């Protein structure tokens, strides 16, 4: 890191410490001096000094350790309530005045002292000749003074709330302090001796450089925002811009965004267009004629039941059905008409054909396209909203998108049908392995189910297709073979969106919509 970027990264505390040296490479300052001249708390100072040492802007000139004596919590307690040695001597002297005999146990219980405290104090007093132990384990004052007991009081008073250097004490005091200082294995002592490390610090070479740069910067005023005025009058050159902490979490925004499911469908749409398909559109409300009759589903077909399709309340019937389609389709149902078919052999009900329903299959859109002179060769698709009379649950929606379409051409046959499905497998599901299974749809023959090995989902049904029956194409005026195909993409969409319930495709939860990444 070069010096200027090092400077940019400096904390205000570090800047303060560095400035104290005034750019003087010969200045050597003690930490105490730094505390005074910066006015920082010792903890802040030592933090800043450690950082600067780590960045090699400061160097240690000399380092000295000074032993400092202070009172422990116990020491402060002794200051208030006297130490065991003082208290033992005092009770022994009182007993001597009254002539009472005093056992060690008496001392212990009267003063509320620990046995170790009492035995330690008695041992010391006996050694110094201030006490005697007489027959029966009683103690007796000799009347002589105890050096330790007297010195203890003085030390407690001197050190109460004010640590001092050890060397400020006399030889004998130092001895007592050291005897009664906390050590490993003996924490119950009144004194503590700590080494206070005093460093004499100086600037390193880069420190000198940094200090000089800092002092030059000092002249610049700090601002928080670049303004048009600053740019206009050029004054930005004399400003310093406050540095930001860029590692903070960014504030959240809600971007404008496509719906993830719509995004998925847009991708499908784009793929189909890229494969040469032209989009078709249709109507949400359809006649039974276009929704089913035109697709050669007999009027008694179970899928036309009241439990499978939504019927429109009012008006219940369309005013008319386009001719010649109505007559030609009716004929195909009755006896096949011109289609080479036997037909379904039942009385076709033209009234029923006009009954209005909510479009139940996207193939209705294809039927309309067939009837409006489509291009040959031609490829068409629609992404059509369809409606089914289903109980809504995790896998059934009441309205949903169907992706489907048709391909018309002289070259259309069973093998080109399989070729088209292969293309869908590769382009839409990125699948290399496919299986073609025989299937049944009322309007195609032969019919195929396309199963693919999806890279994430394994084997799945991707769609259904077939060649439109002549009973469908001829009455609508189309004489070339036609592929009808449909893709079931909801499962792929749900995987792409990371959801398990089909109802979530149309969720009303804005948070969920905003946070879904979507993928394809």
């Amino acid at each position, binding site marked *: 890191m070069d010096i200027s970027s090092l400077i940019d990264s400096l904390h205000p505390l570090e800047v303060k410490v560095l400035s104290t040296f005034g750019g003087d490479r010969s200045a050597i300052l003690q930490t105490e001096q730094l505390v005074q001249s910066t006015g920082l708390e010792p903890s802040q100072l030592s933090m800043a000094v450690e950082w600067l040492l780590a960045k090699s802007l400061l160097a240690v000139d000399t380092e000295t350790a000074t032993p400092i004596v202070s009172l422990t919590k116990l020491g402060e307690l002794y200051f208030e309530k006297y130490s065991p040695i003082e208290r033992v001597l005092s009770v022994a002297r009182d007993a001597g005045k009254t002539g009472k005999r005093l056992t060690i146990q008496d001392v212990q219980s009267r003063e509320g002292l620990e046995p170790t405290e009492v035995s330690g104090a008695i041992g010391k007093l006996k050694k110094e000749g201030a006490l005697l132990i007489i027959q029966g384990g009683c103690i007796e004052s000799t009347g002589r003074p105890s050096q330790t007991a007297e010195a203890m009081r003085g030390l407690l008073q001197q050190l109460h709330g004010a640590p001092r250097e050890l060397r400020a004490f006399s030889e004998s005091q130092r001895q007592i302090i050291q005897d009664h200082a906390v050590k490993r294995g003996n924490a119950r002592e009144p004194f503590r001796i700590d080494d206070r490390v005093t460093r004499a610090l100086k600037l390193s070479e880069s420190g000198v450089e940094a200090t000089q740069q800092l002092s030059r910067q000092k002249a610049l005023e700090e601002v928080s925002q670049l303004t048009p005025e600053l740019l206009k009058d050029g004054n930005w050159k004399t400003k310093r811009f406050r540095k930001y902490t860029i590692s903070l979490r960014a504030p959240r925004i*809600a971007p*404008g*965004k*496509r*719906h993830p*499911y*719509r995004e998925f469908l847009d991708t499908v*749409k784009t793929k189909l267009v*890229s*494969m040469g*398909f*032209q*989009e*078709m*559109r249709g*109507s*949400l*409300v*359809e*006649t039974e004629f276009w929704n089913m009759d035109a697709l050669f589903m007999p009027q*008694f077909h*179970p899928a036309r039941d009241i439990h499978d399709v939504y*019927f*429109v309340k*009012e*008006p219940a019937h369309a*005013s008319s059905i386009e001719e010649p389609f109505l007559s030609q389709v009716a004929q195909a149902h009755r006896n096949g008409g011109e289609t080479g078919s036997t037909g*379904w052999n039942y009385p076709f009900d033209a009234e029923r054909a006009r009954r*209005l329903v909510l479009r139940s299959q996207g193939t209705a859109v294809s039927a309309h396209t067939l009837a409006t002179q489509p*291009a040959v*060769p*031609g490829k068409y698709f629609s992404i059509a909203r369809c409606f089914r009379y289903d109980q*809504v649950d995790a896998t059934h929606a*009441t*309205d949903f998108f169907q992706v489907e379409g048709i391909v018309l*051409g*002289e*070259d259309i*046959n*069973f*093998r*080109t049908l*399989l070729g088209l499905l*292969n*293309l869908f497998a590769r382009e839409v599901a990125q699948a290399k392995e496919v299986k*073609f*299974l*025989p299937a*049944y749809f009322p309007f195609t*023959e*032969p*019919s*195929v189910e396309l199963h693919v090995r999806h890279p994430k989902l394994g084997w799945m049904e991707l769609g259904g297709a077939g060649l439109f029956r*002549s*009973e469908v194409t001829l009455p609508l005026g189309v004489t070339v073979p036609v592929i009808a195909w449909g893709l079931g993409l909801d499962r792929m969409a749900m995987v792409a969106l990371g959801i398990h319930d089909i109802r979530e495709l149309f969720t*009303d939860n*804005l*948070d969920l*919509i*905003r946070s879904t990444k979507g993928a394809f």
Partner: protein
Amino acid sequence: MPTITIFKQDLEGLLVGPGEMSQPITIEQLEESLMLVKGELKGQNLDTGELRIELQDSNRPDLWCCEGIARQIRVKRQGSLPKYDFLTIKSQSPKRLNVAPGMETVRPYVAACAATGYVVTQEGLAQLIQTQEKLAEMFGRKRRTVSIGIYRLAAIEFPVTYDLVRPDDVSFTPLGMDTVMTLGEMLLVHPKGLEFGGILAGHDRLPFLCDAKRQALSFPPIINSREAGEVRVGDDALFVEVTGTDLSMVVLTLNIFATNLADRGAAIEPIEVRYPYKTSLGMSVMTPQDLLRSQKLPVRTIEQALGQTLGAQEVAKALMAYGYDVAVKGKQIAVTLPFYRQDLMHAMDVVEDVAISRGYGEFLPVMPSQFTVGGLSRIEEVSDRVRALMVGMGFQEIISNILSSPQSLRDAMRLGATEWGKLVEVDNVMSQNFSALRQWMLPSLLRVEAASNRAFYPHRTFEAGEVARYDLTQPQGSRTVMVLGGMIAHADAHFSEAHSCLDTLFYYVNHTYSLEPIQHPSFLAGRVGSIVSRGKQVGVIGELHPEVLERWQIGVPAVAFELDLTELAE
């Protein structure tokens, strides 16, 4: 598409002839073989050997049973269908079934046969009942066109009469009951009478099947007699009858039962049905009977449709192995469906059977080679453009159901009896929540707003999509219109925010517009305008009425606009 339950061991037994050693079939082999019948294994119980199979083809009722599935697989293995002698035997004095005069207006057709020598097993009985139910339900349109009765033959004295009687004339104990009751009482009391009685509505005389001693067999298509009509495990002689309204469906259904029982080892004895009126098969009809569904077609037709040259012999081989009877005459081929099928309507039906018999995997896929230009519809292009603009202006796109409720679409929007409140409603409502098509977009946006008071503000949402406008000038009574709805909701939402967005949209789709003050119950008076472009009203913009917000339980102000994209696209 029926789903049936069969037993693996039963299937294995049927894959070979009666009395022959069966071979176990693996699940993989089964799944492969199910392609022949458009079947899919939906579930299996390894302990009981129970298999659940869904059959796709609604025109192949012969496949909706264990016998039919086994037969199709067996024919493929053996290369052709064996002869069933009951179709050809001529008996001097066959058992007879007489039809009563007047039946032609009630339930005109009946077919029947006797089956002896097969001892009914537990599994066989279960299949018999299941087949009876599935065929009557799905092929017979809930017994309306076809219903089936099976009886113990031993109790029956021939000739049987398919009679017409008054509801109170005869009585017997029906299946599922302990007491004797009249036909009229059965219609009123018996569960099957209640379920299927509608089929006979309007007739003062009812069908009644009885034997030579006037012993009751059944009340078709409602219920069998408990006495003669309760088949049990161990019975070895059965009588099967089918009644209905379509003679070929009735005969086909009997053919399926006769074949199924023959496949289990029964000897089938045909029965002569005598009508007092003409039928398409005459006044005396032997059943079962091969109705000879046949067709002549050029081999070239099949090859063209499949996109593959096969030659007449290969085509013939494939069809024989699928049960057809085939005769090759030069470049023509004459095919006849097996007698348990009737689904030959068009040459393409034969084409598919050739493909299935050979296996779809035998056909090499070929890409369609002709060039076509892809593209989007004009309305989709306009929609995509405004969607991109809305995203650019910071709106989150949503998608909603088009089916909604009149409460949301009209009542909560204060649209009551106004023109704006006219809806395309559903007749057969399942749930009020899905009973009307949305006529405008704002309720869809309010639905999201109402559910999202915890999502941080501001909320800017839009949806471009279809709505249905009630319009009696249209043949279908409504128009499908693509609209764009946009909404802004936050504590300080203001009319001008929505206005700016609308203004921007119009600029970039290169149209001009003006706002004209209108009265609209969904918006605050004086803060709502009709969007007018090229002299037409193409939308509305305004600040939503507090009562609307209250109805949706939305706690912040909202401004919104809605634009008719179909108009803009023109």
